[in-house]
């Protein structure tokens, strides 16, 4: 997206260069003007692709056969690249490979604008983009992989045959992918551990004196790490140019529509502040709280204390269901002072962080309640903690006991444990919902504890427990699920296309 005067000189060359490889790191913003129709279609279709990736990641093991197959079908249907071969022949129908690469490139950059706005959006976008990249990289042949590495300045040394011999056993025992037979035929790269954090974190690599020894086939982790870092930096920079985007009356609604499509609902907006009384919490926790919140609530009542992770997860959830700051302070204080904390210490040590949650202290960010993804993936509970996702973080045996206590039928427990075993934690939770609410099949796809609460209240006829039906604004999620036809026309009807893309360009220039 360049100014037209400059564009004429460079476009052709750089574009050929830009799209010469099936995969790119999106280092360069697009250098051309695009039509408004394309702008919308591209953005909405990429969003559909990313949503697909998110859903597949919940239901299948990443890069399993089924995962790959389903993703391939979806890529194909949406005209995104799905096979790495560089085929320039015009296909009998549909766009050429080059056209697909261009679409991939441009759509990525449009979504960057929409998804750089908040920490939550960024996290979601990065996660899906990384997964998409992983799937595509996996599909490249070894030569293409090496080429991609070198094009992106990731030139690491391979170790000598002697060194490999000396370290043979350790290399074999450090990597799940490598067996004794293949150590000889594989190149091992010696990489500073800071460049391979995912491998270090999960101990999937041999580490010695600050260097990791990575077999060629695992180099993908390094590439992903690099991709993630670059994308995360780029988004932070793009976010800085956001005030300019926000002041643009034509762009802003369009981008907002795009960005809200990911969760559908924004649980940080409190429509029913103060509609819940503190006395109701105990009964609500039994009826309408998801297991994760029921569990922290119970342990708070028992121990009169919760450690930081639990306070954050539960505190933000309570905020999301409508506790006001004053209520929250009263709630936490009355519980904590039953334990070892006196009122004075509470005010000194804990009140701050509760005000913080409501955006009244510190950076004054209004924190969003945690989504299931966040509860499952970040900050796993350790000794003395009670937060986290019980489907993910409890021993199956303990989970079973808990479910029995909560009167889930034996056959229901078996179904839930089966889902847990397949690592489908959210589906397990949804099953728990169905079983405890007597619904055949839930009409929603669970991705947020607060969503669980709202849906539960709906089923239970809400109005009785809460003085007014929870009313969280419904965002146009349909955009992403019902296809391009539902694109936000309102925002886009009568604009000067060239002007708009030019401005888009300037946002990236600032970055």
């Amino acid at each position, binding site marked *: 997206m360049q100014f037209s005067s400059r564009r004429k000189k460079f476009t052709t060359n750089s574009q050929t260069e830009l799209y010469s490889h099936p995969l790119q790191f999106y280092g360069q913003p697009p250098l051309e003007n695009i039509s408004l129709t394309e702008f919308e279609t591209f953005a909405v279709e990429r969003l559909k692709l990313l949503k697909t990736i998110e859903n597949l990641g919940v239901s299948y093991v990443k890069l399993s056969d089924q995962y790959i197959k389903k993703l391939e079908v979806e890529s194909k249907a949406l005209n995104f690249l799905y096979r790495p071969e560089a085929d320039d022949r015009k296909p009998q129908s549909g766009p050429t490979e080059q056209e697909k690469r261009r679409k991939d490139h441009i759509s990525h950059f449009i979504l960057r604008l929409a998804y750089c706005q908040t920490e939550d959006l960024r996290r979601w976008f990065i996660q899906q983009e990384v997964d998409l990249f992983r799937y595509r990289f996996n599909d490249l042949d070894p030569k293409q992989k090496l080429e991609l590495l070198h094009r992106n300045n990731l030139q690491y040394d391979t170790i000598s045959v002697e060194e490999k011999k000396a370290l043979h056993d*350790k290399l*074999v*025992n*450090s990597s*799940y992918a490598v067996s004794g037979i293949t150590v000889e035929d594989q190149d091992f790269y010696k990489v500073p*551990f*800071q460049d391979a*954090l*995912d491998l*270090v*974190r*999960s*101990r999937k690599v*041999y*580490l*010695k*004196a*600050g*260097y990791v020894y990575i077999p060629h086939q695992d180099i993908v982790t390094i590439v992903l790490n690099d991709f993630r870092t670059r994308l995360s930096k780029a988004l932070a920079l793009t976010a800085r140019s956001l005030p300019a985007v926000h002041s643009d009356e034509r762009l802003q609604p369009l981008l907002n529509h795009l960005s809200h499509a990911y969760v559908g609902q924004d649980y940080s907006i409190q429509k029913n502040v103060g509609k819940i009384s503190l006395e109701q919490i105990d009964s609500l926790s039994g009826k309408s709280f998801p297991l994760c919140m029921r*569990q922290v609530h119970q342990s708070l009542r028992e121990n009169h204390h919760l450690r*930081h992770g639990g306070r954050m997860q539960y505190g933000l959830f309570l905020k999301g269901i409508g506790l006001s700051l004053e209520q929250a302070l009263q709630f936490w204080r009355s519980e904590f002072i039953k334990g070892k904390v006196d009122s004075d210490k509470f005010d*000194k040590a804990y009140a701050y962080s509760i005000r913080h949650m409501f955006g009244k202290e510190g*950076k004054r960010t209004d924190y969003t309640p945690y989504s299931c993804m966040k509860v499952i993936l970040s900050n*796993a*509970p*350790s*000794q*003395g*903690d*009670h937060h*986290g996702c*019980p489907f993910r*973080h*409890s*021993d199956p*045996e*303990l989970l079973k006991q808990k479910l029995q206590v909560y009167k889930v039928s034996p056959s229901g427990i078996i179904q839930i444990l089966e889902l847990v075993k397949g690592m489908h934690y959210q589906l397990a939770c949804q099953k728990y919902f169905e079983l405890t609410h007597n619904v055949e099949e839930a009409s929603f796809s669970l991705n947020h504890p607060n969503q669980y609460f709202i849906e539960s209240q709906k089923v239970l006829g809400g109005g009785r427990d809460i003085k007014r039906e929870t009313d969280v604004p419904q965002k146009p999620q349909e955009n992403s699920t019902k296809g391009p036809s539902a694109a936000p026309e309102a925002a886009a009807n009568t604009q000067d296309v060239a002007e708009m893309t030019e401005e888009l360009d300037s946002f990236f220039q600032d970055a």
Partner: protein
Amino acid sequence: MPASDYDSACLPDILPLYYRRLFPFSQYYRWLNYGGVQKNYFQNREFSFTLKDDIYVRYQSFTTQNELEKEMQKMNPYKIDIGAIYSHRPNQHNTVKSGTFQALEKELVFDIDMTDYDDVRSCCSAAEICPKCWTLMTIAIRVLDRALRDDFGFQHLLWVYSGRRGVHCWVCDEAARKLSVAARSAVAEYLSLIKGGDDTMKKVVLSDPIHPFIRESLVVVERYFPLYALQDQDILGRKESVDKVLALTPEDVRKQLQQDFQNEKKPENRWKLLKDQAKRKQGTSKKGQHFEKEIMLQYCYPRLDVNVSKGVNHLLKSPFSVHPKTGRISVPIDLKELDTFDPFAVPTISMICEELDRPRTVEEEEKSEETNDKENEKDAAESRKIRDYKRTSLAKYVKCFDQFLDVMARSWKGELLKKSDLQKDF
């Protein structure tokens, strides 16, 4: 003097003495200045003080050693915490544009606290410690020190007794100080084997192949396990603790061992029976039968507070700070004498202040005259302070700190040489 003789009520009286005559300011500054290799490194460091009545002041910073000394002697903090090196002077953080004041660097730190081991020690609970469970800290230091050096290549590790129930590690290498939050959490997770909270019974699950890091850690744990777990904690003695151990074995093995234990009461022999079962299992089934190793690790492997290590801006209690509850000084631990390190022998502030009042020996007198002759007026105060701590039981801990600093200073020299060479090139 036993710790029971310490009374926190006397702190207002003796802290001034401690900061005036005993606190090793020059070593302390030498450490945090890191040879002056990076500009404003000391100046932009955050200190925070806990004053009387739990008054907590954050974002203290000092331009020179002299200023640090003066302020500490004025405020007499009950407790000192060290934070990050920031983009600006922390005491001016309110004056810089919001968002620009950022934590840039800090030592990579680890915090190991005995309370995290409550489910595996029977001798004490919560904040209590005794010589029996202290072995857990020894194991933790051995395991982590090895891994940080051999695996991560760090060299400058300062281990410090927290003054009450745990230990801290300060990894001071330049590369460690510059680690990102993501890198810190990756290191901490690499080093963490104990997973799950109170709702997880089996906290260690090994899978094949066993990573070299875990093998090396097991070598350490195996060395201490018989004495610590079997004898001192007697985990295979009483019925309920036996049940806890057996709960970590596969069901068929559990049944068998429950029978075998009827006729065998000696913990060592019981453990041998359990190991034999593990060996048999490993011979028959193909994968993942490491329950004897898992048990050893669950009972002995270090339990890290990952959140402390992760944050660049996380504060940690400073070496040579007093622990207000016990009065003990937070002292460096000499790894050469780790196995004999006794937390109960660590001096309290009242003890070393008392030692100051003891009459000097003749030898000491002579020495002090000698130095007085040689040095001018300005150095006299400084050298008196040196002699002051040398007359107390703090001396050997300061010496250990000195040795740590000497080794680190060699790396600064290298850095400074490189810098001046670069300048010559221009």
